């Protein structure tokens, strides 16, 4: 049975050392570049018609735009549109990385915790910087909910602070764990097919069962790939809304 973890291995394609850090170009780096090229290439190609009545591809590009813009308007209002490029970039990067990762043999950039943690920290820092830039110290009202009796306020504030600082953890681990688990499940079930085919006797005829399961799980993983990109983006919108309107 093939090793289901092997798909997450990193290998240095080019050795590179920057300021004492190992900045080697790995297969992960390659797929990051592939993701960027795929997104920009697709969107530019899709929008080149610039037609009033959109072609199929063009309406796909517009749909992505309107989807993210709608998410921002729903959670933050028109004010949130200043974060649109950042949120759109996040959504497209995660979505494309998840989708490209589903191509057999491809590497899934978002299946490594350091990548999702970096993206979650980017959101976390953006929330803090934007929150203080817009509200000054008023941003700290985030930890002091309105209408809470004074004698439970220390407790509530402590909980608010803990939940605020645990956000990047859950934010990053959710995406990482979903990608990791999905890909391992796919490999394990695919391994069952090979294993049953190689086995002697009647067990061979059980082979279609994991095959059907793999087909089903693949479809599910496509849903998860989109859903996790959506969830990550949605949470980003909600966190940024706190930065704009800290007074709950």
């Amino acid at each position, binding site marked *: *049975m*093939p*090793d289901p*973890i*092997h798909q*997450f*291995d*990193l290998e*240095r394609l080019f050795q*590179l050392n*920057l300021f004492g*850090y*190992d*900045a*080697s*170009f*790995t297969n*992960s*780096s390659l797929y*990051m*570049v592939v*993701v*960027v090229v795929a*997104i*920009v290439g697709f*969107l*530019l190609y899709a*929008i080149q018609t*610039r*037609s*009033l009545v*959109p072609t199929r591809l*063009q309406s796909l*590009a*517009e749909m992505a*735009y*309107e989807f993210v813009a709608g998410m921002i308007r729903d959670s933050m209002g028109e004010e949130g549109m200043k974060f*649109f*490029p*950042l949120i*759109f*970039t996040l959504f*497209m*990067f995660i979505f494309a990385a998840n989708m490209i990762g589903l191509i057999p043999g491809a590497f899934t*950039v978002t*299946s*490594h*915790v*350091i*990548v999702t943690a*970096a*993206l979650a920290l*980017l959101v976390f820092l953006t929330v803090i910087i934007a929150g203080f830039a817009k509200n000054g110290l008023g941003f700290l009202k985030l930890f002091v909910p309105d209408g809470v009796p004074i004698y439970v306020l220390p407790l509530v504030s402590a909980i608010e602070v803990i939940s605020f600082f645990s956000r990047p953890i859950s934010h990053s681990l959710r995406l*990482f764990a979903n990608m*990791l688990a999905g890909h391992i499940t796919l490999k394990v079930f695919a391994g069952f097919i090979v*294993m049953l085919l*190689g*086995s*002697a006797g009647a*067990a061979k005829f059980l082979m279609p069962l994991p095959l059907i399961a793999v087909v089903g799980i693949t479809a599910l993983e496509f849903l998860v790939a989109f859903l996790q990109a959506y969830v990550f983006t949605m949470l980003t919108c909600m966190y940024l809304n706190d930065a704009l309107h800290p007074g709950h």
Partner: protein
Amino acid sequence: MAQKVNAGTEVPHGAGHKKVFPPLDQQFYASQLIWLAITFVALYMLLSRLVLPRISEVIDERSARIRRDLDEAERLKSETDKALKSYEQALADARAQAGATVKETRAQLTAENERAKSSAETQLAAKVAEAEARIVATKSKAMASVSDIATETAGAVVNKLLGTMPSVDEIKKALAS
């Protein structure tokens, strides 16, 4: 069968027993962070400078066009309403005018009729009166002729009977008595 499977899974683990779980392998953290930063910033720049303005331009242009078309449609509709109203006004005016004309014409015709009828009646009455007068004249003339004939006849009868011709005055006196 179970042995085979175990052997299959054991080999990679056994071979690299110092290997850590790759998604948590710290030796690649720096490389992944650096390349993520490079690619993410590149994507951000490309999207915000190049791609998103084009998409929003198309979308804005379409919504502006739709708004313009809706405004135009609204304007045309109000124009149509106005035209319809003025048409209805004209129709009502024409109808009222036609009614007035009909009434006037009818009154005129009735008056003319009346006049013609009354003039014909007076004319007829005059003719009747004239005819009656003529009848009366003819009658009196005939009556006069009757007395002449009676005188003449009486004279002839007396002449035949007596052989003498009395004078007209005598006959007339005798007849009148």
